[in-house]
């Protein structure tokens, strides 16, 4: 019994630990190849760069745990970033009833986040109410949100934002970049949610066996809608950071982010069929990808070779995991 318990704990630790081994090996190799890699500034640099993916992937993890998927994160990020930027710069004008509403930075950010949550809510609504497969529902949202972004920005970046807003993406606090703080807080919140709250337990149950979960009296739809809304809001949060770092909202921002974040989730050991996985695993997945991108540039690998190397390393990273967890 005791032995068994230990094995259990050991396994669980493993499950989280595995990507760590791959990451460790990667870092060792890189720090051998480039003396610039393990410098303080570069570490913060990498952290800042991956913070956005971490934020998005946290939401994605919740979605994937329910055996769902969210392809719309990239466009939602773009749209919400653009909304915030637009409101900051131009506010809302209704020439008809000659009305003008200006927005404080805070107000604009809240608006952006709210927009993200609403878009996510739509996803969840289509998925639960009409039983549309998550892949299709969020694919539709991917196109729609991108189109709306183009319409809202007319295809041009919204630039020249309030300099204080740039602080969110570029500022530091206690020697740590603000985006890193944000991602840190979000990750902590998500860890608590998944491990300690009813919502978290239900998410795992739904992903594990939806039928059994609903027969246990869980309101599947409510949970799913909540999860997709959270994912949307987090994508929006990513959008705010990207916008403020660039001091511009790009109409084509976030293109292809869905793959990056799903990759982080899966490399982190979460199963796309739902029910098993951890937030921390996802974080490690995101870090691996980020470190890789950074390393390839530091080593000035030719753009031609980069993709080849990147693909192989990711494959290797996952194989290392599996090799070490095969035992079960």
């Amino acid at each position, binding site marked *: *019994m005791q*032995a*068994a*318990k230990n*094995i*259990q*704990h050991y396994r*669980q630790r493993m499950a989280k630990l595995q990507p760590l081994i791959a990451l460790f090996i990667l870092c060792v190799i890189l720090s051998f190849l480039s003396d610039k890699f393990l410098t303080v500034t570069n570490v913060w640099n990498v952290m800042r760069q991956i913070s956005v993916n971490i934020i998005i992937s946290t939401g994605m993890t919740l979605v994937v745990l329910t055996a769902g998927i969210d392809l719309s994160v990239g466009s939602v990020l773009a749209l919400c970033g653009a909304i915030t930027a637009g409101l900051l710069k131009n506010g809302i004008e209704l020439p008809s009833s000659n009305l003008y509403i200006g927005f404080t930075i805070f107000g604009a950010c809240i608006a952006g986040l709210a927009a993200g949550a609403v878009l996510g809510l739509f996803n969840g609504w289509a998925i639960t109410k009409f039983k549309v497969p998550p892949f299709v529902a969020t694919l539709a949202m991917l196109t729609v949100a991108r189109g709306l972004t183009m319409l809202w920005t007319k295809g041009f970046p919204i630039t020249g934002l309030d300099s204080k807003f740039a602080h969110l993406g570029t500022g530091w606090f206690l020697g740590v970049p603000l985006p890193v703080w944000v991602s840190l807080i979000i990750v902590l919140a998500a860890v*608590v949610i998944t491990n*300690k*709250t*009813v919502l*978290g*337990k*239900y998410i*795992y*149950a739904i*992903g*594990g*066996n939806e*039928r*059994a*979960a*609903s*027969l*246990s*009296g*869980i*309101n599947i739809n409510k949970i799913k809608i909540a999860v997709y809304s959270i994912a949307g809001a987090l994508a929006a949060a990513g959008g705010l950071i990207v916008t403020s770092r660039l001091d511009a909202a790009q109409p084509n921002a976030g293109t292809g982010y869905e793959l990056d974040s799903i990759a982080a989730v899966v490399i982190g050991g979460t199963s796309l069929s739902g*029910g*098993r996985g951890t937030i921390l695993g996802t974080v490690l997945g995101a870090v691996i990808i980020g470190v890789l991108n950074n390393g390839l540039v530091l080593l000035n690998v030719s753009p031609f070779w980069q993709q080849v190397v990147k693909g192989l390393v990711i494959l290797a990273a996952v194989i290392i995991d599996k090799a070490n967890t095969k035992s*079960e």
Partner: protein
Amino acid sequence: MLVADNISKKFPGVTALDCVSLELQGGKVTALIGENGAGKSTLMKILSGVYTDYEGNIIHNGNIVRFKNTRDAQAKGIAIIHQELNLVPGLTVTENIFLGCETLSPLGLLDKKQMRSRTLQLLGRLKLDVSPDAQVESLKVGQQQMVEIAKALLHNAEVIIMDEPTSAIGDKEVKVLFGIIEDLKKEGRIIVYISHKLDELFTIADTYVVLRDGRFIESGNMKDVSHDVLIQKMVGREITTGRQKTNVEKSGELLSIEGLTLFKNNRQTAKLLKNISFKLHKGEVLGIFGLMGAGRTELLETIFGLHAGRATGKILINKKECSITSPAAAVKAGIALVPEDRKKDGLVLSLDVKENISITTLHQLLTAGMVNGNKASSLAEEYINNLRIKTSSQKQQVKTLSGGNQQKIVLAKWMATNPYVLMLDEPTRGIDIHAKTEIYKLISQLASGQMGILVVSSEMPELLAIADRILVMSDGCITADISIQNATEDKLLTAAIPKTN
């Protein structure tokens, strides 16, 4: 002749088998007996090539064999009916029966005609009335189990292992199966038969082998042992079976069903349940008997709000009408359902024992909005002890529990909610005789409180043992309402047989 020689098998945290030896002769039915988690299925999985890493030897017709995989075992003439259904839901009956050994036309394409006609033969032999082209998922558990049996018969193998083949089928089907087993005996096949229904063993088996906690206890001829001796051997000490409580004082009415009707789907008018009405009182154990396909599961599911939209009629709890449109609503209203198919409907296999037991009561385990791990553990601990669930720890994945212990987990998670109305659909399916008596005790304890209990079972003795009153269903109608005092097996049966007109 097939011999298992000093076979041991370890799983992380458990020794499932510990130097077990047994000898199987042709033309004989060997009964493999043991409590839940004794190691029966594991041993059979080794003999049929599912588990390939074990210590000890398998000796097949005098020479040592080591199966590389199930196909290898099949080739050596060993077929197994697994305890857990292993069918592909999306495929048809024919496709499932022939999976892995399809017959091909000269062109190398599937010879569907051929396979279909063979299937029809097998279904005929099993007297199973389903279309060979029906998708397996559209069949009831019982029908699916018959398909499993057909699949095993297809190979006309030399060794046929049956791991609780009758756990989900009614007496009619059991008789058919026994007939077939007799034939196989005459043909000199080796047959291993695992079941927790002892009386079955006495009718069909020639020799017995008892396992306890993964160890070989003893073997012998069925005719030399008595029912109680056998139980004593498998449990290790005396236990008393039989009826627990006698009279029931009917305090007030708890649940009342009025004119409940269920349509097959919202287009057609075909009815699965026809205008069902009955009452359940506080402290009453109401048994529901019927043959397979009578509509009992549908009845429970409908009360539980699973078929809202397809159903009409009133449900009153404590005399108050409540509209139950979803399981969530049912649970709020104080109804619990222990479903028929534990793997599909009862458990989240990827989660562990603790998480499965606590899933229904999480809201009562909160401290400061957070789920309190210790509360959850003590809850799980309580039921692991009460129901004697055999698990290596609270953190063992339920996927890896023995069949019977999985069933106990489902019971536990619903008892934890202590509802007004507890509905049990085949509650002791696949549960060993000892645990059964435990569960009977529990049921009567629960009933002695405020709770009312609905029990669906295909085992008459079970109902006669625990119920205060028995409803009999036959294709969607209630055909009899018999109080326990004047309930007899043939009364129940006559009421259960559908009137053919």
